[in-house]
C-alpha cells in the first residue's frame, strides 16, 4: 500500500491525485490518502519521518519492520 500524506499544496491528496499517482507509476496496489501523514507517523519511532518510509506486516497484520528499509529478502521471508 502507498500512503500519500500530502499533495503539492501540502493538503490531503484528492482522489484524482491518487489516481494520477497510481497511473503514473503503474501501481496495482492500493494508493491511499494519509491525511497529515497520520498513519505513516504511527509507524515512526521519534518525531522525524524520512520519506519514503517503509513498514512490513506479515499475515495477520503483525508488524515485522516499522519505518525502515524493506528489501526483497524481507518480503520473501515473511510470505504467508
Amino acid at each position, binding site marked *: 500500500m502507498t500512503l500519500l500524506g500530502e499533495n503539492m499544496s501540502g493538503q490531503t491528496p484528492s482522489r484524482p491525485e491518487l489516481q494520477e499517482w497510481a497511473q503514473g507509476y503503474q501501481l496495482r496496489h*492500493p494508493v491511499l490518502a494519509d491525511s497529515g*501523514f497520520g*498513519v505513516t507517523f*504511527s509507524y515512526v519511532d521519534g518525531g522525524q519521518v524520512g*520519506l519514503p*518510509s517503509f*513498514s512490513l506486516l506479515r499475515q495477520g*497484520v503483525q508488524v515485522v519492520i516499522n519505518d525502515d528499509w524493506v528489501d526483497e529478502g524481507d518480503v520473501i521471508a515473511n510470505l504467508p
Partner: protein
Amino acid sequence: MRHFTAALALVGGLALVSACNGQSAYDEYEDDDGDDDDDGNGIFNPGDDDDGIDSPDSDGDGLTDAEEEALGTDPDNPDTDGDGWTDGEEVDGNTDPNLAADHPYQGGWPIGACRDQIQPNGNNRPGDIAQQFQLLDAYGDQVRLHDFCENEVVLIGAAFW
C-alpha cells in the same frame, strides 16, 4: 413387531460397526478438500451450490433462497443492501450483503475472512498487531488495513511532491 425389532437391531449393528471403525456415519459426506463445495452433506453452507439442499435462486444472485433466508437477505432482490454488488458477490468477497457501507473493493483488493478476528495491540512496533486504519483510495473506496489480514503488507509512506 418382529420386523420392527429386527430393523432396530440392524441399525444398532451399523452404528456399532461405525463406532468400531472410529468413524462417524457422516464422515463420507465431509468436505475433504475444504472448498465448501460438492460435499453433499445436507448441511447448509453459504455459497455451497451442492450442499444437498434443493432450493431455487429466485433473484439469480448466486445464493439459493434457503441461503438467503439464513443470511437475512432478500431472496427476491439480488442486491439486498443496494450497494451495487449482488448478495452472491458479497458472500464470495467476505463482505456483509446487508450493509451498504461494506462491499468488495472496486480495485479488486482481496478481503480476508479473518478481518473481524484481528485484535490490535501496542503502537505499531515490531511484534505488535497493527492498529486498524481506514483511508480513501484512488477508486473512492475507504480501504481498511485489517481487510488484508490474509496477506503480507508493505506500507510505503510518501508524498505527492
